[in-house]
């Protein structure tokens, strides 16, 4: 009888992989016996580069840490610098930052829909989702000049004020997306072929999720109501009304339902932001123009990204340079501690499905 044990590489060149990484799979037939995550295809040494640069120079790098969702990086970076340098940000700048984060969350969820549907062959959803995400990118382009990387949330505030009539255009896009989301429910979320593939697959235990430091939809799909925006509110999230969607099953489908419900909540938050947007300055008055002297101290800041808690450790050393900036996104623990265990016993055809549901972004592991 032929040897039925084989080892294959799932990625980095594979349409079902979420970026530049690979999973080495030991298989018995179609069943996975062992999974090993490999990164190293994209290491750019950002954390090292940032140590040799001033704050304004480092600012242009941070958004590149995560490609599908750069804004949580910008906000974390700005919040950490502001906390160390003792800068107070205006209320208008805080509202604009929330608007950026929620638009970015919506854009990231559309991109996720494109990836997740593609992993089971529902390619029409992907085409739609990318087109709808583009409407949000148009808004980003108008406001910041960049579609994907914005370099907009600067320590002390934001770089530009809103153009004339911008909030009206955001509202128009939201109205359009609200009608579109119902169609996504029909062709994707409640589609029998997706349910059949996703239900009961990649089930995560709630206690394990808490202890092992899993975040985002992984946690909320196990019934745990955890969200940095509620647990440790930052910016103006404590002035806004929204719910944290949860599910109980802990499987791929539950995580998809949570993500879908979160899109509604993002729209709800954005509508309140449009209504409440205060007038005022967008940039704090800095003692020296675009120069920051960070005292010898350290801090830990975090925001809720579309994939879960996203945190930065930052230490200053009394100079204009940052002594250390360490990124802790959801991906490192999800791609190693979680994915390597979750894949054992799963079927080969479910690898992309499970991986997409965990919100793994390799550029953020290899920052």
């Amino acid at each position: 009888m032929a040897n039925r044990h084989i080892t294959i590489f799932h990625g980095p060149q594979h349409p079902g992989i979420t970026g530049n990484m690979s999973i080495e799979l030991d298989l018995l037939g179609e069943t996975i016996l062992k999974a090993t995550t490999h990164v190293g295809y994209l290491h750019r040494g950002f954390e090292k580069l940032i140590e040799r640069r001033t704050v304004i120079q480092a600012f242009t790098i941070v958004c590149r840490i995560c490609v599908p969702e750069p804004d949580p990086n910008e906000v974390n970076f700005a919040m950490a610098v502001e906390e160390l340098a003792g800068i107070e940000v205006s209320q208008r700048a805080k509202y604009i930052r929330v608007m950026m984060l929620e638009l970015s969350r919506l854009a990231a969820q559309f991109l996720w829909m494109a990836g997740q549907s593609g992993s089971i062959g529902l390619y029409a959803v992907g085409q739609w989702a990318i087109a709808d995400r583009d409407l949000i990118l148009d808004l980003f382009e108008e406001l910041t000049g960049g579609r994907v990387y914005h370099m907009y949330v600067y320590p002390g505030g934001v770089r530009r004020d809103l153009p004339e009539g911008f909030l009206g255009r955001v509202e128009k896009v939201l109205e359009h997306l609200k009608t579109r989301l119902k169609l996504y429910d029909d062709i994707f979320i409640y589609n029998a072929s997706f349910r059949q593939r996703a239900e009961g697959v990649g089930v995560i235990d709630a206690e394990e999720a808490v202890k092992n430091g899993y975040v985002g939809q992984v946690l909320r799909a196990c019934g745990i109501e955890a969200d940095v925006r509620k647990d440790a509110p930052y910016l103006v999230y404590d002035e806004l009304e929204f719910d944290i969607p949860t599910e109980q099953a802990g499987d791929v489908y539950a995580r998809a339902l949570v993500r879908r419900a979160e899109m509604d909540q993002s729209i709800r938050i954005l509508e309140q932001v449009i209504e409440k947007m205060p007038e005022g300055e967008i940039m704090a008055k800095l003692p020296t123009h675009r120069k920051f002297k960070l005292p010898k101290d350290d801090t830990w800041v975090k925001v809720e990204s579309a994939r879960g808690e996203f945190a930065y450790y930052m230490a200053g050393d009394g100079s204009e340079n940052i002594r250390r900036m360490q990124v802790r996104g959801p991906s490192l623990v999800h791609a190693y501690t979680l994915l390597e265990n979750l894949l054992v016993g799963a079927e080969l055809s479910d690898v992309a499905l499970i991986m997409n549901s965990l919100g793994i972004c390799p550029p953020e592991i290899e920052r």
Partner: protein
Amino acid sequence: MNTLIRNRFGTDEIEVKRDDLSKVTVVKYRVFELIHLLVEQYGYTTLNAITCADWIEEGHFAITYMLTTRARRHTFMVQTMIGREEAKIDSLTMLFPQAEIMERDLHEMYGIDFPGNGNLVELSLENWVHTPPLRREFDTLAFVNELHDFREGRDDNLDVKAEMKRLRALKKAAKEAAAKKEALKTEEKEEASQPSAAQKESGHGK
């Protein structure tokens, strides 16, 4: 809780950084005792991250463990200093499985040993034999200059300022040449529009 930690661990201060963030610094050999206490008695059930900062001038690394409560409402930064030479601190993998990958990352970037972690293999750097890259003494520019040659035609990268000066001079010269050419053209046009002396004499210019 703060008084208990202060008395038991002889630490001078528990720094309250924000409502949701406190920091305590303890000596290396008592750090795990404190982490155990926070986990068992005060509900800091999750290890969120292990971070490292290199204080080369003081000769140590600052290792910080970020511990969070179950509801993730409060984070405790437990910091300890370890010597840079033969940097070593026990692994936390017995308590938290996610510590394995966090320690592996720091092992690769700083060369810190974590006894008890059985998987300190390479993560993103392949066959790396040089100084661990995130140590302060690792100079990226010197490393690049030592190991790589500049591609033919890119020699100007060596001195950006000189190159910018040269380009500015070229641009200026081109501008001056264009202005000169323009002036010459206008002169010629003017000359052409004025009738020549011979034409005037023969009466054609009238």
